[in-house]
């Protein structure tokens, strides 16, 4: 009895922990990504939620079956001298639990594939293109108009922000000139690797002004942790003003051609 009580207590503890994880968003324990600010991030977020619905049902169902075995079929709960039925299998059941997971994973794969086609295809209708280049240890953002933002890596809380206008479809083209880096701002979208010699791309369309943090996600050497990212979205008019200022700075600092 003492042992089954302990098993029960453990289960209740774990259930409480799971509930805590699924309900609280404070104290750094979040069961889900930050609120997405770009449509591709929203698509990923929704896919995650969709898979979670199925995952939680399967998790609860299977753990409950395990718990039932622990509580009901333990030797101390069976009558003395109980001889279990010597079952060697059941074709119907075995086919059943082959087909059911198959249907579930095909559904999840199909659902994910639709999202993959929607948000991960190459785009050509961008309003602006930025070339993002990773190096040891920092990021360069080339706006292809002479302006380049150098986001040098640092362990300090702030690094130079990469500035984009809001509600503008920006295509990001990735490149690296030494080792592999990976650009990741969770609130915007997933990761994109910057591999030397390979073309890779992503895009963003941020719906409100603000600042979002990210980090390099591919181990790239001793300065890997410094490669922090800050993306700052500004209203279009603010962005124009910022860009004009950058152009002026670039013009004054670069040597005159004549």
């Amino acid at each position: 009895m003492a042992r089954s009580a302990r098993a029960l207590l453990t289960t209740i503890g774990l259930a409480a922990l799971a509930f805590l994880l699924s309900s609280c968003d404070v104290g750094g324990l979040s069961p889900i990504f930050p609120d997405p600010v770009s449509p591709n991030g929203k698509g990923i977020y929704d896919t995650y939620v969709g898979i979670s619905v199925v995952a939680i049902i399967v998790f609860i169902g299977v753990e409950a079956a395990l718990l039932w075995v622990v509580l009901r079929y333990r030797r101390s709960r069976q009558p003395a001298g109980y001889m279990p039925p010597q079952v060697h299998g059941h074709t119907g059941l075995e086919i059943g639990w082959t087909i059911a997971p198959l249907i579930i994973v095909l559904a999840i794969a199909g659902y994910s594939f639709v999202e993959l086609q929607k948000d991960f295809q190459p785009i050509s209708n961008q309003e602006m293109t930025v070339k993002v280049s990773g190096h040891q240890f920092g990021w360069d953002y080339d706006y292809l108009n002479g302006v380049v933002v150098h986001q040098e890596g640092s362990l300090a809380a702030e690094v130079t922000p990469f500035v984009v206008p809001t509600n503008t479809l920006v295509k990001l083209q990735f490149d690296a000139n030494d080792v592999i880096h990976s650009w990741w701002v969770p609130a915007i979208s997933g990761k994109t690797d910057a591999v030397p010699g390979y073309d890779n791309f992503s895009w963003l369309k941020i719906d409100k002004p603000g600042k979002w943090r990210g980090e390099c996600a591919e181990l790239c050497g001793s300065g890997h942790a410094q490669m922090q990212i800050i993306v700052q979205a500004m209203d279009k008019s603010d962005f124009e003003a910022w860009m004009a200022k950058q152009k002026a700075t670039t013009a004054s600092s670069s040597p005159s051609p004549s």
Partner: protein
Amino acid sequence: MATTVLPRPKQYDDTFFKPISIWLTTTDHKLIGIMYMVTSIISFVIGGIFALIIRLQLSQPNLKLVDAETYNQLISAHGVTMIFFFVTIFVTGIANYMVPLMIGARDMAFPRVNLLGFWLIPVAIILYYCGFFTGGSLNAGWTGYTPLTEKAFNHQTFGVDFWALSIIVWAISGIMASTNFLTTIVALRAPGMRFSRLPLFVWAQISTSILLLIVGAPLAAAMILLEFDRQLGTQFFTTQGRPVLYQHLFWFFGHPEVYVMILPAFGLISEIVPVFARKPIFGYMSMVAALFGIVFLSMTVWAHHMFTVGMNTYVEGFFMLMTMLIAVPTGIKFFNWIATAWWGSVEFTVPMKFVFGFLATFLIGGITGIYLASVPVDTQLHQSYFVVAHLHYVLFGGSVFAILAGIYYWFPKITGRLLNRTLGEWNFWTVFVGFNGTFLIMHTLGLEGMPRRIWTYANPAWATTNVIITISSFLIAFSILVLLINVVHSWGHGEIAGNDPWRGNTLEWATTSPPPPYNFERVPPVRSFMPVRDLRESGELIEAEPVLTPT
């Protein structure tokens, strides 16, 4: 029926403390198996100490307990040690000990290849650790992605070279062991031990060996090409070459390696559940089919580690689908285990507790695997702490829990003595709580954007979670200490087990504990996949003369 009891050679006393000459030169699969297991447990302790240093460094933001370079070497050494030198080596060792016994053979098919295969492992381990004593070991993670491991970015030390050489030696050893297992199982089965009567642990070893035989060579090839780049100036994986080609070669080995570590664990679970539930395994044929389904599928999924490098979305879709399909054979195994225990008379001994610990935690690893297989979701989760949590749920909550179950289950066969039950209970409950405390909340760090392999972080929001993880990780360390004390104590002073303490089903329980060098005085007749149980029920089981008698 009278039996002749052969005199036992002196080297077969029950103690671990034999003359060193016996340990160095023995071709006995059982002693080689013990050496594999002891080597792997030493690696486990070393890798665990690395993990504790890593956890201390991450316990608070902006800590500088170790510097970035040392940290990168520690995470690499932790991964390499645990994967290559602990889990794979332990499952090879326990199979080396048990497979010939379970099929009623006298030894492995190639005893001297077995000996060489084992001794290559300490060579591989020492080669890897040479890096630490020559200025610095591998510092690019256990995956060693190029171009970071190329000469241009990694020329200060020989760490990468020592790692590559170590892995080449390791792969050769693995290929030798796999060949040996397959030959043994095909050629040396006892009369009556048809393929349809092989214990599921042996089937698991067949599938594991096939897998390692196929994927060991591409791994060695990747390492050789990397060394060509570093030492001969070729450009296979350099910035001017094709860094992504390395990832393909590495993961063509790297993903099946996961199954090399988990299939023997599945085999162990399939042996232990029927014994303690007092029911035959549910769906023997579908269990075997599921093993080979996993073998096939596991070689078609490697690029799911590369969803962020920028592949065609249809190629990504293919790898996503194949990855998710692995849930089907794994699900069959899972439901068959539950069905085996259903209606049973389940005795929750320590090994059975670890089996249920395995089932409860491995399920979580399987479910998070579905999230990671989904390409869009993976682009968020990839290379974050979510992945670290997932891989520990399958490797620790899966393989290591099964290994612990195996240790408690087969220790009496190997030593003739039971492990202490009270210490075993402590071991189970502390590792179960410590493990979940460490890795369950680690998922949330990844969701919040903490990448793996960063040596420090500035974000104060991650501090609370990290400190809870660090405290829990020390509970795991305490638990492993309890296990080690239990093993060392019980080896000399444990309760005498007798030949068949659990009323087992398979042939190893028909011989003495520990078994003699020739394994069986008479190989018992085999009439089903539970030969010892058949004999017990028909009254034909001849108790072998016990080796250990209470003093």
